[in-house]
């Protein structure tokens, strides 16, 4: 890994952690608080490329497992890996990789970015997260999906914000253009 890879991986892991430290953003008509951490995954995938983004998310999971309280609400430690939302966490590196791969394959227009964020940042995260939630809570996958769907409106808003932000950032700072080292 080059110095640049190292710094970007650390920076975006730190960004995703810092977004969890910010107070949750209240959004009208959404019953659950919208936290910034999904935004961190999406932004990493869009901006620093598949491999680096996946490593950044993996690094964040390692820091959590070591006992740092980096999830929103100051949660962390090994407990979060056996709870009902463990699957969502495990999906983060996969999601970031998927978003990055999508963007480097199909370009960085805002439409592609939004699609990438929906497929990777929402779809893939739910595909991994919901069955594990079903397993932990011993629900049927259908019921778990129903329970998980309360997060969907917030996640869609975040995908929209992340896509608009990433498109603008990639324009404003083009040297980062997903160049894989």
């Amino acid at each position: 890994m080059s110095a640049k890879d190292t710094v970007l991986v650390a920076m975006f892991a730190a960004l995703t952690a810092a977004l969890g430290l910010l107070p949750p953003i209240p959004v009208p008509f959404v019953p659950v608080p919208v936290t910034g951490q999904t935004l961190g995954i999406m932004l990493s995938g869009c901006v620093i490329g598949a491999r680096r983004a996946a490593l950044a998310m993996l690094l964040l999971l390692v820091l959590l497992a070591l006992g740092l309280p980096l999830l929103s609400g100051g949660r962390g430690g090994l407990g979060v890996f056996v709870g009902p939302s463990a699957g969502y966490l495990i999906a983060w590196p996969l999601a970031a990789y998927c978003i990055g791969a999508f963007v480097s394959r199909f370009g960085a227009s805002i439409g592609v970015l939004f699609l990438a964020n929906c497929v990777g940042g929402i779809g893939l995260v739910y595909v991994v997260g919901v069955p594990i939630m079903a397993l932990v809570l011993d629900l049927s996958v259908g019921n778990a999906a129903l329970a998980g769907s309360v997060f969907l409106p917030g996640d869609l808003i975040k995908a929209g914000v992340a896509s608009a932000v990433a498109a603008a950032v990639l324009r404003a700072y083009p040297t980062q253009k997903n160049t894989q080292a």
Partner: protein
Amino acid sequence: MIAGLYLPGDGWIHGLSAPVKLGFMFFTGLTIVVISHVSVMVLLTISVGFIFSVVAGLGFKRLWLSTRPLLIWVLAILLAQLWLVSAEAAVLISLRLVTLVWVATLVTYTTRLSEMSDVLAAMCSVLRPLGVNPERIAFLIALTIRLIPSVFDIVRDVRDVQKARGLERAYIAMFVPALTRLLRESDALSDALTARGFERWGDKR
């Protein structure tokens, strides 16, 4: 600043080595998943709760605090299982969840960050033949912990600036400058690392 969840204490659980605790956690986790009898599960939950709060000296307040985020899930389990299966299944699954989380949280609360890092380092050394460089990983972890407060400050700074302009609800106007600043900082930092010979770190080993 960023601090771990470790809580200092002088109980004998604090004194156990991290690999022993992790092994114990793994074993207890398996046991919890296998148990299918409610009365056995209740007994196990009570004993884990007792070990957590009294033997490890973490107190009942900590036990409650680590249970609180689970309550909404327990409620969901109770509702779904009561409706679909039976009260017995609902209690069993709720206790299983709570006990698993207690055991894992107990390990995190009683083990220093440095001891956990040592376990990670040992795991990384095993992976060294696959091209994993433990020194680089250690550097990456230290760098990330160092960067979290700075990133937080940058994001908060930009948010304050935009708030002064009446844009506190414009999330796009907030994140674009923040992210651009992060990328600029990253460039400066990686130049500084390169200038100090980062690309060849660990080559002589």
